[in-house]
């Protein structure tokens, strides 16, 4: 299957990128934007989907500062 992992800064953890983007957008003429967060996106083919959670905790995300969410894109 093809899986997608969304990795984002944990609530309460500083997100410098989100802050920078949020500050930049109004200057570009995009008003009314808030609560911006920047994270990472990992997409991959996996045979054994039960491994995904473990993979996230061990490698893809840093559980101390990041939350992750696993999505299935296409089953196989």
């Amino acid at each position, binding site marked *: 299957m093809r899986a997608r992992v969304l990795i984002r800064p944990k609530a309460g953890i500083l997100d*410098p*990128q989100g802050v*920078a*983007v949020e500050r*930049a957008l109004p*200057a570009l003429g995009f008003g009314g934007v808030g609560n911006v967060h*920047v994270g990472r996106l990992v997409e991959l083919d996996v045979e054994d989907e039960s491994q995904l959670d473990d993979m996230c905790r061990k490698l893809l995300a840093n559980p101390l500062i990041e939350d992750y969410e696993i999505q299935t894109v296409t089953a196989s």
Partner: protein
Amino acid sequence: MKLGVVTFPGTCDDVDARLAVAKVAEPIALWHGDPDLHGVDGVVIPGGFSYGDYLRVGAIARFSPVMESVIAFAREGGPVLGICNGFQILCEAGLLPGALLPNKDLRFVCRQVDLEVQSTATPFTSTCEVGDRLSIPAKHRSGCYTGDVPSEQVVLRYAEGHNFNGSQDDIAGVANAQGNVMGLMPHPEHAVDLLTGGSADGLRLFEGMARVAVA
């Protein structure tokens, strides 16, 4: 002869660029929030981490008020040199073809590298001969060049064994079709003085810029 050096929030090598420029012209500090270019004859966009490199290298700085003026200045044929983060910003601004991706090893590397001059059809390299080797430090984490660039616009390539970032065809620096805008990842402003630079080869790019800017 006045050459402007732009400072964005997060720019690091602006002081260095002004020191280098001072060897060939009068350096003028330009501020990202001020669209006035103060009558400069050329613009240097220096290296560093404008806006922390957040989101994508060069992505946010490219929209600063000063950049509108720089873009207009470049379209009129004014010489513009982008170094490292400045190169990334010029690519994001569409003044130069291509984009800079993370280095192939995903690490920041600070290393003296050798470059080979490919074209002398820019003000900056007008002081060089094709094939000249320049020893200049490079230091970046996102210097892997990729893009559709005609070979005559490739100005500098890494010498064999010196391409640590994985750039396509060893490209280290490119120019626009007119040749008045150039960007490169290595730092010529850090090679203008033997005491601190290990070489003074980088000075030639500034000399070329000043020579043409005055004409």
